[in-house]
């Protein structure tokens, strides 16, 4: 490739950076305020205000989506637009695409803010947005990607700096994750079913969920660290060589770690083990990046005392180190058995988001805003106040969640001298956590106050200046490299595809074939890279890759696809990973577990949809792990085959309330009715919201029919006759429950949402329930 150069002047497009900066501040405040509200709802159930659309189950997804996609998302885009133009020494390729990206993203956030409180949700954590919004997210992400890669194509700097590598990894991987996890079949304009069910759905979801943390909350922020930290410290990054090792090892290993969210569940053991091992391996690259960041401050530590920006960056990187130590620790199966479902996980994730993301955002904004508006920071003292108040808030938050999390884990597993539960009543644990919940709320309030101080400080800064336009003199490059198709058809791409194909074989093969394939892949990679390097003697291989964004992107794609494919394809494709249950009783007749694989009745399906709509999975799991203390408390441990018709899966990740997988038949209909109307009446001290409004709302019979048809297309064995009779069956089964309640002087309409929810809960963990008066006379479990 020939490269000629001439001098030219560039005017950067900072107007879109300014827009994303303001959006970061606004949505950051909204996301944190929502966090404070949901924390107050855990402390004081009255804060649910008796309104379904403000209840914890609906607001918590809004909080997480606002924090991740609105706050951190806008912060990422501000940082990417600012740094990319300067690192590749050119203006963004298209102003129109930049603004389409900005307004599209804000509209998506507004759409999420409307739909989630309305209960329109897919019921999967961090992936709750309904399918029309998913399509919008994908389209806007493509707009961002086109603009970004087009800018790289017209760059005036031959080599891509490390920050750009992290941006490439983010764009490519988020696209893959988002699309695969959202493959779904719409059953209506606002509702859909994932094509994955049960175990497969769980694996795909946590492959997505974990890597949303990795590639949305980590890699782009690392890119921002590698650009803004050297600028603030006025020193180059400590080791560029370390950054190369850091980048490739991090993106390759991170993608495998998703199953650590499913340890001791019904996920196949081999996938759990892979998840744990790769999580432990993550320690090395994560700490490599952390040390590279902290050591960049060598010789600049005196600034830590005087410069709030350095303070924010240094503490952010320290929190990154702490979180990435804690993550692998929590992935060790024995530690996970204690910590999973407890507040410890909440503390861990908030150390990452508040400490790493929030403080990196603060450092970046304090550095960038004065420059974007051509002025000085309004008040350094206010920035110092923000730092100390927010740090104190974080400590209150994280430490209180550690204490309550470890206490909950120990409380749940405590056995007495006879090996029976020492604390059989779940609510005791909730009550003992109450003080820590209040402390967490205080921490959240302090962090929000700190953020508002920043908001005021930066608003005053913006008011004192005016939008500045920055011009730079650069040496322009005129490239005459290979064309697009020549690159696509090049041996490098063919080789990459071969690696992917071999990885699939590896993933779906037996142990021997797998080992042979792996050795073959590795030897091939090593030989080819060494041979290629020998041919280009004297020229650095990585330097050449850095100069070819297309080749770089393909290599990134290969690195992130291998782990996902090895874990997901076998789980989806091989039946033995979801063993069928064929249990017979002493007479040879199918026993209880065999019936569990029967689809939900129309009324139970309606109840399940309400369970998803109200976000019950935010506080209740449906996964009994194979521990004595769990089987004593909840019943038999959960098995993969029990979930084959569950879409979306509802295993949950947190137990603010008890597990519900075996709740069917445990309580009378009346108990459930009272519990939903006023949870304190059956469980004194409970912090669960009341769901009295479900008594008055009705099941939409036509909608259930449409949903059954959609499920049938996905393989759930509903017959046409069953679908046609759905409306009548709903009324029949509802009448059975309604009549039972009427005997105890409680009048509820048989087609009310409350009756549907009771029907679903009574079905959980056991076989089909009677759906008509005739069936009540039969012994059907």
């Amino acid at each position, binding site marked *: 490739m020939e490269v000629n150069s001439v001098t030219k002047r560039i005017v950067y497009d900072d107007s879109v950076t300014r827009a994303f900066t303001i959006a970061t501040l606004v949505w950051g405040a909204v996301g944190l305020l929502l966090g404070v509200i949901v924390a107050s709802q855990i402390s004081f159930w009255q804060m649910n205000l008796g309104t379904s659309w403000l209840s914890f189950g609906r607001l918590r997804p809004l909080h997480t989506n606002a924090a991740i996609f609105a706050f951190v998302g806008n912060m990422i885009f501000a940082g990417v637009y600012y740094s990319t133009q300067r690192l590749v020494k050119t203006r963004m390729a298209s102003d129109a695409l930049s603004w389409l990206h900005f307004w599209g993203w804000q509209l998506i956030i507004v759409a999420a803010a409307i739909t989630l409180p309305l209960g329109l949700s897919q019921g999967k954590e961090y992936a709750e947005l309904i399918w029309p919004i998913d399509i919008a997210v994908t389209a806007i992400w493509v707009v961002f990607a086109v603009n970004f890669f087009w800018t790289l194509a017209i760059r005036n700097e031959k080599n891509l700096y490390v920050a750009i590598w992290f941006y490439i990894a983010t764009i490519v991987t988020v696209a893959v994750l988002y699309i695969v996890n959202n493959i779904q079949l719409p059953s209506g304009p606002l509702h859909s079913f994932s094509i994955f069910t049960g175990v497969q759905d769980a694996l795909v979801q946590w492959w997505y969920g974990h890597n949303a943390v990795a590639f949305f909350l980590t890699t782009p922020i690392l890119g921002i660290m590698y650009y803004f930290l050297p*600028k603030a410290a006025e020193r180059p990054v400590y080791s560029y060589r370390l950054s190369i090792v850091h980048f490739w090892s991090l993106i390759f290993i991170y993608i495998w770690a998703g199953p650590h969210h499913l340890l001791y569940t019904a996920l196949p053991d081999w996938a759990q083990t892979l998840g744990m091992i790769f999580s432990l391996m993550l320690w090395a690259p994560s700490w490599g990046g952390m040390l590279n960041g902290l050591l960049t401050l060598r010789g600049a530590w005196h600034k830590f005392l005087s410069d709030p920006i350095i303070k924010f960056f240094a503490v952010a990187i320290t929190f990154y180190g702490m979180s990435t130590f804690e993550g692998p620790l929590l992935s060790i199966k024995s530690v996970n058995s204690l910590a999973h479902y407890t507040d410890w996980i909440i503390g861990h994730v908030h150390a990452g988001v508040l400490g790493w993301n929030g403080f990196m955002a603060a450092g970046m904004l304090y550095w960038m805003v004065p420059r974007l508006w051509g002025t000085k920071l309004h008040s350094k003292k206010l920035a110092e106040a923000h730092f100390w108040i927010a740090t104190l808030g974080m400590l209150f938050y994280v430490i209180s969640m550690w204490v309550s999390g470890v206490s909950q884990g120990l409380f749940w597993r405590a056995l007495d001298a006879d090996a029976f539960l020492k604390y059989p009543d779940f609510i005791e644990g909730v009550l003992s956590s109450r003080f820590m919940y209040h402390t967490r709320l205080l921490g959240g309030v302090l962090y929000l106050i700190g953020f508002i101080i920043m908001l005021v400080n930066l608003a005053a800064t913006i008011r004192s200046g005016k939008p500045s336009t920055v011009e730079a003199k650069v040496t322009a*490059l005129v490239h005459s490299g290979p064309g697009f198709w020549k690159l696509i058809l090049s041996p490098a791409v063919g080789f990459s595809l071969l690696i992917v194909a071999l990885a699939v074989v590896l993933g779906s093969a037996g142990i021997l074939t797998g080992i042979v394939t792996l050795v073959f892949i590795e030897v091939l990679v090593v030989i080819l890279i060494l041979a290629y390097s020998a041919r280009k003697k004297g020229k*650095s291989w990585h330097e050449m890759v850095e100069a070819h964004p297309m080749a770089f992107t393909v290599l990134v794609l290969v690195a992130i696809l291998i782990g996902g494919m090895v874990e997901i394809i076998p789980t989806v494709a091989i039946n033995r990973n979801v063993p069928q249950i064929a249990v017979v009783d002493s007479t040879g007749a199918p026993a209880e577990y065999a019936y569990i694989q029967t689809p939900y009745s129309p009324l139970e399906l309606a109840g399940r949809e309400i369970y998803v709509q109200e976000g019950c999975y935010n506080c209740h799991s449906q996964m009994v792990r194979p521990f004595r203390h769990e089987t004593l408390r909840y019943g038999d441990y959960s098995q993969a085959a029990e979930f084959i018709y569950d879409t979306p899966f509802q295993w949950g990740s947190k137990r603010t309330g008890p597990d519900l997988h075996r709740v069917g038949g445990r309580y009378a209909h009346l108990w459930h009715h009272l519990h939903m109307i006023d949870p304190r009446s059956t469980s004194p001290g409970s912090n669960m919201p009341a769901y009295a409004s479900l008594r008055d709302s009705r099941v939409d019979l036509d909608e259930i029919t449409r949903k059954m048809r959609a499920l049938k297309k996905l393989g759930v064995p509903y017959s046409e006759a069953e679908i046609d009779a759905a409306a009548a069956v709903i009324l029949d089964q509802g009448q059975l429950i309604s009549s039972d309640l009427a005997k105890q002087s409680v009048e509820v309409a048989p087609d009310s949402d409350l009756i549907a929810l009771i029907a679903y809960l009574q079905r959980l963990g056991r076989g089909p329930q009677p759906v008509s008066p005739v069936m009540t006379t039969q012994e059907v479990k």
Partner: protein
Amino acid sequence: MDVLILTVFISLILVAGGLVLFIARLRDGDFEHGDRLSLMPLSDDTETEAAPEKVAKAIEPRRQTRAGSGDSHGSQ
């Protein structure tokens, strides 16, 4: 136990391959180009505030070049 053996073996293979590549590339000075690149974030500190009339002038040549050559790489 099979899984454990497989996992240990896979780990060793990956580590061995990575080490071979890493040492080979180190010996060839693969990472030394980074000395210049690591200074990149600091080098854009020479930016200047553009006068409004310069803004349009500075963007225009690139647009003309792109429109004229039809080549996304072409910028003079």
